[in-house]
């Protein structure tokens, strides 16, 4: 394996390292209520970016599976969901820790919180559906169909509905986003590279799991 193949994994690690150091030590605007917890934006927000990227990869590979019937596409789709659910869990946990400090409770009644919890239920239902189906091809096909069906609903739940009502989250329901406090762009200079680092890490995890699954699949088909 040459440098060409794994440069992005080194990049991911460097970006994460940069994100953690600059995120904890870099300058942040002094704001009431949030104070230093604003640094959580560097950890909380990238989780959701990564989750969304992985769900997007999953739906793309589900569509590819439907037209190709290649079992590897189905494995990419399911492992993307598996890793996406993990990032969603971390997104919820970092968010709950943050909410506990700034909003006074780990689970306030916020449309974005509820939306992401329900979207998670939907992706867990996708995994349950896979367990309910024995035959491999049928499982791949039917779960791909459900995945494509669920994806737009996830977008409505997490990104459209919270915008139409009052939300505690910045940038929704008349709240201002953090962008307006970040006058010199120093926060963006940390947030975006960190987000790319986490997205690459998520994809890396997914490819690792995919490769394990692929080996299992090959062993399974050879031994038969």
């Amino acid at each position: 394996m040459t440098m060409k193949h794994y440069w992005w994994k080194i990049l991911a690690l460097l970006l994460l390292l940069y994100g953690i150091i600059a995120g904890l030590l870099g300058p942040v605007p002094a704001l009431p209520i949030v104070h230093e917890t604003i640094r959580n934006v560097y950890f909380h927000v990238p989780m959701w970016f990564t989750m969304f990227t992985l769900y997007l990869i999953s739906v793309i590979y589900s569509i590819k599976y439907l037209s190709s019937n290649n079992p590897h596409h189905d494995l990419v789709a399911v492992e993307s969901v598996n890793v996406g659910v993990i990032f969603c869990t971390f997104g919820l946990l970092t968010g709950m820790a943050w909410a506990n400090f700034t909003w006074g409770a780990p689970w306030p009644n916020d449309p974005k919180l509820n939306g992401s919890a329900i979207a998670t239920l939907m992706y867990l239902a996708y995994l349950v559906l896979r367990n309910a189906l024995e035959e491999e091809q049928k499982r791949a096909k039917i779960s791909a169909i459900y995945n494509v069906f669920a994806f737009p609903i996830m977008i409505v739940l997490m990104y459209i509905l919270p915008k139409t009502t009052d939300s505690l989250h910045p940038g929704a329901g008349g709240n201002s986003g953090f962008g307006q406090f970040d006058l010199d762009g120093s926060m963006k200079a940390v947030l975006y590279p960190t987000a790319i680092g986490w997205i690459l890490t998520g994809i890396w995890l997914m490819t690792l799991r995919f490769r394990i699954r692929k080996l299992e699949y090959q062993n399974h088909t050879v031994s038969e």
Partner: protein
Amino acid sequence: MSLLKEVGSLIQKDIILEWRSKYALNGILLYVVSTVFVCYQAFKSVDPTTWNVLFWIIMLFASVNAINKSFVQESQHRQLYYYTIAGPKAIILSKIGYNVLIMLLLSAIAFTAYAVIFGTPVGDLTLYLLAVVLGAVSFAAVFTMVSGIAAKAGNNSTLMAVLSFPIIIPLLIILIRLSKNAMLGLDWSVSYPELLVLAAINVITVTISLSLFPYLWRD
């Protein structure tokens, strides 16, 4: 045979089959009325917010039960026959169409029974009825495809609930918001965003169902 003609005759077939046995229809109607009555026995009287939410929860469970059956009644041999005479688009459209009819009937009965037993604390009855009609259509559009998926996966009703509840929640939230506006008797212009999102969800669901069903229908 053109698509519309196929859809028309398939819906007609479903109605005739149902009319002969009347099993599903009577079952659903009895289910709705008894649920309303159980709720009345439990609650006696409810405040307006609960009144609204309770109605939609009854509708949710009744519609899952009603639409769950839409692919079950088709036997394997009959399915095979359909494949030879109609396209997948015609089949899914006819199922959605038939379920819309069933849901309209169901919600009419449910609303009447509910209104008679619990009363109607509604400011703008026209808008509320519009919300009920839109709700019936949207439930039918979403649940038909999910019941098709659940039918392929051994068809147990647990799976149907697990698969469909998270998907229906955004719709339910918007419907409850819209019907709450109607209860308060707010101006229709306040509810335009809700109506728009409802229409958008319906268009998206039907489009996706149409493009995915061809992959689902044949084993």
